[in-house]
């Protein structure tokens, strides 16, 4: 079992990297040219003071694009995965509190956002999706060395890996 994981890990890591990175990159890319909508989406969570929500609405898309690009390329994977996972964790909290407060909003994860009709909310799906992404991020923090990445596995770890696992 352990040996099997040893063989599969770099490939599983690659899938995790591309999935988490792809989602982050797409989320940022779809919002980057619509700053007004992105700001509105953050405001409508009613979680932050308006001025701070407006700044976050501007900062979030390029940060998502940057983290996504780093993960796709496999550069500083561990740090990028940790930050990406942290972002997803915050999104889960934000969505959960919106749900608990009874707000009717779209998460605005991939553009859009703001008020929607009560029957159009998708809180559970959004939380489950983000939980999955947190899990992938955690996996990458634990095993940051993956196939086809710019990060290189340091030699001493490669040599010692038999003992480590």
């Amino acid at each position, binding site marked *: 079992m352990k040996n099997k994981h040893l063989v599969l890990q770099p490939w599983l890591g690659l899938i995790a990297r591309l999935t988490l990175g792809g989602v982050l990159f797409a989320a940022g890319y779809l919002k980057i040219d619509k700053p007004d909508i992105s700001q509105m989406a953050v405001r409508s969570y009613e979680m932050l003071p*308006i001025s701070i929500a*407006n700044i976050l609405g501007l900062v979030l898309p390029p940060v998502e*694009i*940057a983290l996504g690009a780093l993960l796709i390329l496999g550069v500083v994977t561990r740090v990028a995965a940790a930050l990406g996972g942290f972002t997803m964790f915050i999104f889960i909290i934000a969505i959960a509190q919106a749900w608990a407060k009874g707000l009717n909003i779209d998460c605005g994860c991939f553009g859009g956002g703001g008020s929607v009709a009560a029957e159009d909310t998708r809180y559970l799906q959004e939380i489950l999706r983000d939980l999955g992404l947190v899990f992938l991020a955690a996996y990458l923090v634990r095993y940051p060395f993956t196939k086809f990445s710019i990060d290189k596995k340091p030699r001493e770890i490669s040599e010692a890996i038999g003992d480590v696992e």
Partner: protein
Amino acid sequence: MSKAKNPAGGKDNFTRNLVIAVVVGVALIMLVPTILSKQTDTSAAIPASVSAEDGYGIVFNKELTGVPFIEIYEDFQCPACARFESIAGEYIEELITTKKAKVAFHTLSFLGGESQIAANAAACAADEGKFLQLHKTLMANQPSENSGAWTSSYFSTLGLGLGISSPEYDKCISTNKYKGWVNNVAEEGSQRNINSTPTVLINGKEIDRDTAYASLGDFMLAIEKA
């Protein structure tokens, strides 16, 4: 994990650091101009019927007191705004011409691109006293979002159709004269927590989202009560 012990470490780190620098650089290039453009520019040219105190809205019956103050936040490209205009537009126009209400239009540009072109054109038309006419025509003939229909030449031609013949109007359109103002309107809306279009306020209070946007009767009732 000391990379220094890795014989190939120097080269790997160079590639890695280069990639990090490029990614962070690109992110900053995307971020900084957006943040700067989001600052309210108090020196921006504003249309004659606009004042910063009224949140940069285009105001009708500014001088009236003791009448309901209707504030409309909308985007020329938003289908729900066109729907509201088709329901309540004529009534609002009547309130303006009969001096029964003070009305401010805030032309937001949530939908980007052509919303900004249209908002600028609306301000140019306001200077010619044709805002309401342009507003009505655009909402009644709304193309699909950012389809390329709303260009400078479209608005020049539309101006002729509305009876605007001054060269200032054409110049206002082609130079995007009120670009700064369009940004200021958007910025004011975001500071005022306007989270959907249309948003209509009567004396500072939003009308009932479940009823008053979709029915003229309920909207009239809301005005009466104000």
